[in-house]
């Protein structure tokens, strides 16, 4: 049994050491907001915050995450930065199918936590790991700028 603090709540979890954090979150904790897209760290859909940094949870083993602090999409909008991102995402009507959006929002929030006024180039670099097949990239970029301005 190992402990994870997930969205502010400490949980004792029984899972194999090599089980990816993504599946611990989705299938043991039952939090479905974090999405599975590729299982190979290529698409960003599974992005969560571990100990303050954005990570791809499909590439993070339970053993590595254990004892740490995890924030998922279910918890991030309660933070100040997360709340600004949520408002900007809402105002600009960013999501289309919405499947990649939790991962996009987690990456965006992590960017804004360390860079209060990112340029287009900063955004492109930080967000390049998050694929959107619906192509809502333009609104993602504008929403990040808007969240930064507020």
């Amino acid at each position, binding site marked *: 049994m190992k402990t994870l603090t997930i969205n502010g709540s400490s949980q004792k979890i029984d899972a194999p050491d090599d089980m990816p954090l993504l599946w611990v979150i989705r299938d043991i904790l039952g939090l479905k907001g974090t999405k599975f897209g590729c299982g190979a760290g290529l698409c960003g859909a599974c992005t969560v915050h571990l100990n303050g940094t954005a990570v791809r949870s499909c590439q993070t083993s339970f053993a590595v995450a254990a004892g740490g602090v995890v924030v998922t999409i279910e918890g991030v909008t309660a933070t100040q930065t997360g709340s600004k991102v949520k408002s900007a995402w809402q105002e600009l009507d960013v999501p*289309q199918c919405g499947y990649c959006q939790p991962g996009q929002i987690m990456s965006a929030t992590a960017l804004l936590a360390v860079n209060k006024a990112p340029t287009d180039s900063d955004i492109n670099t930080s967000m390049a790991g998050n694929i959107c097949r619906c192509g809502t990239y333009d609104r993602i970029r504008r929403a990040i700028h808007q969240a930064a301005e507020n």
Partner: protein
Amino acid sequence: MVISRRQFLRSGAVLGGGFFVAVTLPNLSIAQTITRTGTGAFGAGFKFSAYLEIRRDGDVILTIGKSEMGQGTLTGIAQLVADELACAWSQIKIVQAKAAADYGFPHNGFMITGGSSGLRTEWLRMRKMGAAARLMLLQTAADKWGLDRAILTVADGIISAPNGQQASFADLAEAASKQVVPEDPPLKAPEQRIFIGKAIQRLDTEQKILGTAEFGIDVQVPHMLTAIVITPPHLLAPLKRFDASEALVRPGVRAVVPISTGIAIVGDHYWAVHSARDAVQIEWQDSPFTGMDMDQLRSGYRDALATTGKVAEAKGDVDLASHARSVVLEMEQPYLAHACMEPMNFTVWVKDDSAEVWGPTQAQSLVQNTVARIAGIDPNNVTVHTTFLGGGFGRRSAQDFVQSATEIALATGQPLKLMYSREDDMRAGRYRPFSQTRAVATQDADGNFTSLDVKIAVPSVSKWSGLKFLIRDDGVDEQAVEGLVDLAYEIPNTHIEWVDHDPKIPVHFWRAVGSSHNPFVLESLIDELAFAAAEDPLTYRRKLLSKQPRYLSVLNVLEHESDWFETLADDKGRGMAIVKSFGTIVAEAVEVRLVDGVPVVDKVTCVVDCGVAVNPGQIEAQMHSSIVFGLSAFLRGEITLSNGAIMQSNFHDYQPLRIHEMPQISVHILEGDETPGGVGEPGLPPILPAVGNALYALTGKRLTRLPFVSLV
């Protein structure tokens, strides 16, 4: 907001009972099942009760049967109803409909979402329904107050009389349900519209931001097991033998069962079954595709092009047309994967005489048939719950994953969620077909376009999909030739022929279908003709479209907004294309550079004529979406085979566009009054030839093969 069926039922509503629901529970009003028979505005057997419910607490519940895959159909259709009904937008709550003929196309009751058809097939019916309901509510108020209905006004769900009396829809709903339903209510004039034409925010945005929107992959039902299927690396190789003993002892693995497409590992959750793949020892027989590689595939297509196909269109006589100048293009376009962000999945529970299924499907009617056929039950006893779709692009109307899930569910006797890994999704897919096309266009000495002679070798997606109504009586699959026939260009002689060449690699609809590949050929050809006649490509098209005012308007806006005739920097090329598909005309102009020999698209100007623009914000979003999807295909999209095995497996070797590759896109929507055309797909067909044409303008080299490899 879009509420789930479970939430809705928990809140106490009884569904399907009537226009206004039975007074057996609090907050609800008296039922009347309103069934229309005969034709009239709504069509035979249309049930209000299936679609619209006005509750005493003020909620206006709309049950909509279109699959939401990002194209905004739920919000768009809600706008149609609300516009005529004149409720407040905040009253609207959407419920995703279960499968039923009530939610099928008005003309045939078939329930499917595709072909950019949702809003435009519901354009009339949904507005008529809203108008009828509004009139019934108005009449109720008029009766109640002893006033003439004509002097009452309605706004935001409140009916007002000149003397200051007011009543809300909620107040009136119960009594209104007893009114006679107007047979054919008049609709508003365009200037009276409230919600149609506005860039209203989507009703599903908040859930998708919070992560609470339920996709197929998120479905959880009690006693559910999860499965993955190991499919043969060489396509469709039958199973020889397998040994599951090592896999069965792994924690969380419950069973290993062979099904028609491979070996299913069934267990408690995805990781338990996915991580057990290597523990199953499998021997496959020879695949029917053993030895097939791209050279062999190509030569099969070349041979097919030398045969006689079915004539899809023949105007005048191409042999007699003036051939003063002739342009020939032989083009090849690849298999493409859909690569939806949400991998394929489906949840099936087979019971005694019925089944209940959940998941991200585009084709509810087909799902009922598939499950019924495999389980040996009546299709009407298959309850289909549709979730949000993490992308569709046509892939999710296929039945392969539904079939597999049903087979496994039958074997286990419990609710069963089948999940695909990304590798499964990429390799055990249904692809946009590979095609080869030979196109010959001729001009007379004055540069007039005299004939178009095209032969295309491509398999029939309609046959593969089971949607036979898409095949013409003469046997021509419309999907194979769309974008080559019924052209608006003035061409006196045409001969369009289709060779149904089928290498048997599974194929299916892919965004824009035949219009995903045919316009690349045609619009490249038009540019070749323009250059042959020493004319600017946009000017040349104007001449060919001189009798088509809507096309001319689109070209005018394109010229203006793209600065078409302005001088461009030496390192940039400019190209354009104009295509009508799914009832909508889209023209795109692009500016492209070459960086280390690879095209970089800097700017796209997109002009849309879709008739009435129901939600300009969503139209813009869909244009962006289609352009990005098309550019991904142009630059890097290709599914290839080697010795009968598909080469690509994940996003490292099938690479969609990422945010840093996003061009600057401006979308210009023309105002129109005509019946709306679709918007989910029409932005895609022009982008591929526009980039090809831009590269030609820059380099003088014509791309005849996609994806882009090099300009040699």
